[in-house]
């Protein structure tokens, strides 16, 4: 066996930049997914039958097709709709749409676990429906489902590697470039696999910190 990690590690500035690109894709994707998740749940609870049906169809469609097919579809569909975006922004949209479908299901589970009496108490206190949804339903619901949401977001972080298929700027596409220059395929991918592992541990501890600081009320 003839391994040479030297030529790969010599490119460490590019690898670090790529890791930064992956982190950026992941965090932007999470924010978009969370927004789509909350919006989807709000629409489903609004009582609008057509809106609810569309949300259900969206969730089922996204959860039962591969991300790779979704990202290709979005990549080719946006220009036809007259929207020209660079691959990285396209990847963020695809990640947000994909993660959003899972987030809708997760957050909905949390919202349904909030006792009805809590909503009624809010009404009795004279809060507006929007305030009730935000303060009395959404916040405790997010706290309840935060563990499932974080494991979904770890999956989203790992999914960013598929964005290489549309040449978005992230770690895997950087690795493919280095692979093309050096022909050290195994060494490159082994190295960035370790980097992904470190990244997912980093994000997991980030979530642990959020759990301890944001979601400790009312115990503290």
């Amino acid at each position, binding site marked *: *066996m*003839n*391994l040479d990690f030297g030529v790969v590690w010599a490119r460490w500035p590019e690898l670090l930049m790529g890791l930064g690109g992956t982190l950026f894709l992941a965090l932007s994707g999470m924010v978009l997914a969370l927004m789509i998740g909350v919006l989807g749940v709000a629409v489903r609870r609004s009582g609008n039958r057509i809106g609810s049906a569309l949300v259900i169809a969206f969730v*089922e*469609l996204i*959860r*039962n*097709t*591969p*991300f*790779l*097919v*979704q990202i*290709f*579809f979005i990549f*080719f*569909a946006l220009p*036809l709709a007259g929207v020209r975006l660079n691959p990285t922004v396209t990847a963020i949209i695809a990640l947000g749409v994909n993660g959003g479908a899972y987030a809708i299901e997760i957050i909905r589970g949390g919202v349904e676990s909030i006792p009805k009496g809590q909503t009624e108490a809010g009404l009795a206190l004279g809060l507006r429906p929007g305030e009730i949804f935000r303060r009395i339903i959404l916040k405790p619901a997010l706290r309840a489902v935060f563990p499932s949401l974080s494991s979904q977001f*770890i999956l989203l972080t*790992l*999914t*960013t*590697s*598929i964005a*290489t*298929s549309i040449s978005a700027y992230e770690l*895997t596409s950087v690795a493919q470039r280095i692979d093309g220059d050096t022909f050290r*395929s*195994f060494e490159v*991918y*082994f190295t*960035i*696999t370790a980097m*992904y*592992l470190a990244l*997912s*541990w980093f994000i997991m501890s980030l979530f642990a910190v959020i759990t301890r600081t944001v979601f400790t009320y009312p115990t503290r």
Partner: protein
Amino acid sequence: MSTIGTPELLFLLRGLGWTLLLTAIGFVGGIVFGLVVALVRVARRRWLRNIAVGWIAIFQGTPLLMQLFVVYFGLPLFGVTVPAWGAVAIALTAHASAYLGEIWRGAIQAVPLGQAEAAHALGIKYRSLMRDIILPQAFRLSLPATIGFLVQLLKGTSLAAIVGFIELTRAGQIVSNQTFKPLIVFGIVGGLYFLLCWPLSLWGSRMERRMARDRR
């Protein structure tokens, strides 16, 4: 530029066949090795448990695409020459063993401890305890999550397209490049995946609801 006719559709269906075959190999291999991972994960010896914990952490903490790449490019370095589909099948099997191992670990630990204690009191040995008492109950408990993972695995086989293996998604890419109709082609490809995955998802969630009702 050509249209999407019967030859193109047949090409996609042949890709679909490979997708199904890869899923089947990964799932069957994953069941066999996943059972090993689950049993090692709940072993009495700590160092054995740690090995399984590490195996699961590596596969759940890295992208499936990287697992495919490392196996695909790594096997030849160790003198193992396998065709592309073989490398993909090995990677999918290892991936599935970690995920299924973790799912079944949870299910095994969800079987009430009294069951194992009762078996112990009756003098039942480990083999029979696992085979006759714990695993059948754990299997039932784990079914919804196991089906959920099967859907995940089926979708995951699409990544074989990135290493150049012609399964359904790669076939779609090729037809799309030939016909310049990406939306129709990827619409058909997505539709085929949906037809496979959706019934499984519905089955899994119906079973989950029924089990939640039975517990009450």
